[in-house]
């Protein structure tokens, strides 16, 4: 997502053609609401909402055991609902209010105080309200993503406590650092649509949760409905156009480039995962295609507005191959139980994407980003710093949150409930009747 980039940028968004014509007459440099950009942000925000519900809910739900399907969906559902409410109450303000020492935002937007339909988000051509809504959908999916590591044994009531804590103590500061004029954005870290803020963050948080919770009794992956997972993957792919191309905050050429880069990397990663699995296990699986697509989407996220199609293809290949090994080799080797691989896929592909952004950022696509291949090796270092600091902060804080909640209320269900299945035990429901 763009942070302040000076007046030129906004002018461009206000309509270049227009500018050229009225050139000299144009004295006032305050950006004006652009209906085309606003239309795009209304849509993009809706797209990202769809990613969590039903997108991610079905992507994850399909992989859960039949007896845990609804519970798995409920985790994403409540992640979205709770985040939605606290976001407009105070979290948006802490993340995007006026910067306080590079660490956090102030409380100017508490309860969306003072924001009216006429307020534009600073240095954009779109209303503050929809910028807030767009950002909300990012926060919500991040915590929902983390749930993938911890399903089939997490106490539902604990989740309802973890979500607001996690958003407040982890997501909000990191979002501020990267997108809210915080210290990482000062540093020059490139994260077009949230590779660091969303995916690395969610991945390591999930890992922390999995470590605190311990292994499930039955760690086997028995997808109750692979078609649901593919449905979810399709909706995620679709919604991700809003996520990535929407992060340009304008309907322009860079958004268009981000659209194409997103699609290219995703397609490539789906193919790459399929082939890797084929070579390793003799068969190309549909779950692998879907997993590869998601890994590709994750990895292209930070890069989407910076790289050209060749960069996208390379990123797609890396994203499609590496996580195959983290989920099938590293996970059993280290012995953590990352149920649906939120860490193995999102964390890992997010990390790869963050670094590769520093390699492939092509200034002819976006002047704001110049990578190793275009003569700026330093960018890789910055990307590493941003990725590592996010990982560390998120991992440590997540461990603390899970631990503390565990101490106060317990976060793991009883063994017999785990065996009976959480749909019945936690919700009193059966998915299929």
């Amino acid at each position: 997502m763009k942070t302040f980039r000076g007046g030129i940028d906004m002018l461009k968004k206000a309509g270049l053609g227009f500018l050229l014509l009225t050139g000299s007459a144009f004295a006032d440099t305050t950006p004006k609401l652009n209906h085309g950009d606003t239309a795009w942000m209304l849509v993009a925000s809706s797209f990202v909402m769809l990613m969590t519900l039903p997108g991610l809910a079905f992507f994850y739900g399909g992989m859960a055991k039949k007896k845990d399907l609804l519970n798995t969906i409920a985790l994403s559902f409540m992640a979205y609902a709770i985040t939605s409410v606290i976001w407009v109450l105070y979290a948006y303000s802490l993340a995007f209010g006026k910067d306080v020492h590079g660490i956090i935002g102030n409380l100017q937007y508490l309860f969306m105080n003072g924001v009216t339909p006429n307020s534009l988000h600073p240095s954009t051509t779109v209303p503050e309200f929809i910028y807030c809504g767009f950002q909300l959908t990012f926060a919500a999916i991040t915590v929902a993503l983390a749930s993938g590591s911890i399903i089939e044994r997490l106490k539902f009531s604990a989740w309802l406590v973890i979500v607001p804590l996690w958003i407040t103590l982890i997501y909000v500061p990191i979002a501020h650092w990267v997108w809210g004029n915080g210290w990482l954005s000062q540093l020059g870290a490139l994260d077009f649509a949230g590779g660091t803020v969303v995916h690395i963050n969610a991945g390591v948080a999930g890992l922390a949760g999995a470590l605190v919770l311990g292994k499930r009794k039955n760690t086997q992956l028995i997808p109750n409905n692979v078609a649901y997972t593919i449905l979810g993957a399709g909706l995620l792919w679709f919604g991700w156009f809003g996520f990535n191309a929407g992060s340009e905050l304008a309907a322009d050429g860079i958004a268009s480039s981000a659209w194409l880069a997103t699609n290219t990397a995703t397609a490539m990663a789906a193919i790459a995962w399929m082939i890797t699995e084929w070579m390793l296990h003799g068969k190309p699986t549909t779950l692998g295609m879907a997993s590869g697509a998601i890994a590709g989407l994750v990895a292209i996220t930070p890069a989407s507005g910076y790289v050209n199609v060749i960069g996208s293809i390379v990123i797609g290949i890396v994203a499609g191959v590496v996580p195959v090994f983290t989920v099938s080799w590293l996970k059993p080797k280290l012995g953590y139980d990352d149920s649906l691989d939120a860490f193995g896929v999102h964390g890992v592909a997010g990390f790869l994407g963050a670094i590769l952004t520093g390699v492939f950022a092509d200034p002819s696509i976006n002047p704001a980003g110049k990578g190793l291949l275009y003569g700026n090796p330093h960018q890789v270092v910055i990307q590493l710093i941003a990725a590592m600091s996010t990982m560390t902060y998120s991992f440590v804080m997540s461990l603390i949150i899970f631990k503390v909640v565990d101490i106060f209320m317990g976060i793991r269900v009883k063994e017999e409930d785990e065996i009976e299945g959480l749909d019945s035990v936690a919700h009193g429901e059966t998915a299929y009747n």
Partner: protein
Amino acid sequence: MKKIEAIIKPFKLDEVKDALVEIGIGGMTITEVKGFGQQKGKTEIYRATEYVIDFLPKIKIETVVKDSEVEKVVETILKSAQTGKVGDGKIFIYNVEETVRIRTGEKGESAI
């Protein structure tokens, strides 16, 4: 009366049913079951990890027949269900003490 219970490979169902109808069997009941035996389970792959599925899908056919028909029925099932490969299944024969047709209340062989 005897109950003939055959556990067969699912894709053989149509063939077996047609063969049984041809020799005049008037009714049967089938159930989707899962079998475990000498036939090795199959391997499924999820997220680059192989899992062995021990239980394989099978179809159980149950048909109650007159004592005199048992042999013919067994022969027919044997012929139509056989592929010669491991996992073809079994036929079990049980004694049936009584049969009642619910619609009419008829009992015995005429109720079959």
